[in-house]
């Protein structure tokens, strides 16, 4: 058993070193308490709903979220809007459907099963409208950036005047958390930019936190059930391991050898 603990700790140490080395050049991001971290991490329902509001009122004018459907907004583990709310949200968007019996395409209000409507028809149109830069799709954005949620959270609050001596091209902004510090997107948030339905004060910090939480859910819609199942699975494995350990001791006691 002594050998085993040794071996086990080597493996853990190895992965620890590896993950540390990967994040060696990590920038110091702004920190906040994320409710979805840790063994029992869950999303803060209110934050998710507010985050959706920030996304739809601010981000969605440029950023698509093409892998999500409106029905997701009402599903368990997400913002959990009521069915009526989700239907109303969906109906406020127009989608192109068809062809109908006459062979014509037509517009209709979105249904629960429709994917989020994209702000631009294609990448080229998005680039043309944004000075050549493509606003990335936000469906898995949190997972597609090295710093994850901390990075997005910091970036939204990282707009500053460029340091003396640094010249920025027209339409480029300084952000201390952006790779290379130059970003095409102008500061998207300002205090009281939107009015939260639940009365929470819409500071930049609050909105950054809410929208980042929403983006985390968008990227990992099954995060809550993953954490719940993980805890059960690991507890089950630990109990089984203990039982097997004692069975092993019993069986090996028949021979003169150490296990």
């Amino acid at each position: 058993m002594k050998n085993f603990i040794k071996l086990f700790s080597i493996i853990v140490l190895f992965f620890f070193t590896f993950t540390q080395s990967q994040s060696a050049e990590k920038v110091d991001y702004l920190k906040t308490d994320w409710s979805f971290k840790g063994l029992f991490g869950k999303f803060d329902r209110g934050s998710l709903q507010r985050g959706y509001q920030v996304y739809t009122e601010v981000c969605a004018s440029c950023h698509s979220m093409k892998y999500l459907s409106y029905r997701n907004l009402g599903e368990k583990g997400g913002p959990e809007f009521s069915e009526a709310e989700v239907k109303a949200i969906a109906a406020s968007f127009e989608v192109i459907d068809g062809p109908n019996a006459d062979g014509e395409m037509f517009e209709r209000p979105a249904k629960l099963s429709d994917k989020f409507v994209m702000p631009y028809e294609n990448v080229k149109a998005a680039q043309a409208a944004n000075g050549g830069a493509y606003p990335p799709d936000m469906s898995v954005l949190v997972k597609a950036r090295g710093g994850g949620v901390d990075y997005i959270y910091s970036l939204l609050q990282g707009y500053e005047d460029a340091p003396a001596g640094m010249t920025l091209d027209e339409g480029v902004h300084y952000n201390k958390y952006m790779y290379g510090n130059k970003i095409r997107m102008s500061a998207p948030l300002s205090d009281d930019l939107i009015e939260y339905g639940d009365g929470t004060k819409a500071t930049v910090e609050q909105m950054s936190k809410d929208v980042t939480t929403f983006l985390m859910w968008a990227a990992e819609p099954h995060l809550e059930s993953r954490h719940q199942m993980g805890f059960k699975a690991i507890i089950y494995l630990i109990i089984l391991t203990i039982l097997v350990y004692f069975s092993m001791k019993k069986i090996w006691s028949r021979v003169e050898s150490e296990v």
Partner: protein
Amino acid sequence: MSDHEYTPTSKVGKWFNDRLPLLTLANHLTDYPTPKNLNYWWTFGGILTFCLITQIVTGLTLAMHYIAHADMAFESVEHIMRDVNYGWLIRYIHANGASMFFLAVYIHIFRSLFYGSYKSPREIIWIIGIIIYLLMMAAAFMGYVLPWGQMSFWGATVITNLFSAIPLVGEGIVTWLWGGYSVDNPTLTRFFTLHYLIPFLILGLVVLHIWALHVPGNNNPVGIDIKKPSKDTVPFHPYIVIKDGFALLMFMIVFAFFVFYSPNILGHADNYIEANPMVTPAHIVPEWYLLPFYAILRSVPDKLLGVVAMLSAILILAVLPWLDTSKIRSAVFRPLYKQFYWILVADVLILGYMGAMPAEGLYLLIARVATAYYFLHFLVILPVLGFKEKTLPIPLSITEPVLGGSPNLAMAKNKESIDK
């Protein structure tokens, strides 16, 4: 095979067994005499079998939902993650399963290096193992391409481009591999086909690996030949089965932790960006398990020689049984080899670290020294050591050092290091 003839007791069993001796095989597998002093480093064979089966089962399930098309692959992976029932679980097991598989195989290989398991009469087991390892790398590389993210695309571009280093026909080979003039849909579909095929080849080779193992029987920490069956052995079932099972469960706890709590930590964030041939990522890095070889590749200034060095680093292992001239198997009785062994372990870890860093300045220098040492270990140190090293006296049987009673002090000390 088994030392005694086996006859089924029932009439039906006997009738069947005379025609297809499956029962004899089952009997051989359960009775298989195994050295009783095997330590936990020996449990990784069973763990690897579990990894292979897990990858095949989850892979089959994923293949039912995945679409191998450049325009749809990324989306289909998101479909699996979001809409397929427990698709996220299956995909995370498969993706982290690859890392777990390599973690286990590296422990398995380094165990073999420490205890000299590759030496006569086990050379064939070892060579089959190296072929399995090569196929694993091919399968893992192609599997990483399938989600069609940025790292998939650019990793595929970098690795396939290595073939262009071959003089005269290189460019032609690359075009042939791609099925076009760049990494594109034809590349993806053939990679998917091969990724599906290779695990079954590995499965076949694993059967041969185990078959070849059952001829001479297991090596053991003392590294001596033992009589089978004897006081020194225990039947595979239940002794080894339960011990392997216990180790496997511990392994599964680590595995589960990654799947449920850090499923993306071993991957690269860029692979959640859909492949874009117009945008090159800042750093193109392979998965962690390929990093040491990537470091060797980059430490040679010439492209062709770099590829040769990288391939040699793996293929040199295949001739290891003949490079190691020492008659003694276990490092327990080889004080000098034991030190060089740990230096090699450190060397490979350093190479892995350098593979993740940009190839410039001090990093490149260290990578070059580590590469040189890697080859020095196998080509110079090992052959010379066999002749020069003063080895410790080896015990006559496993029971002897385990039960004590040996008058030799050195041997009593060895007992301790065996236990560790």
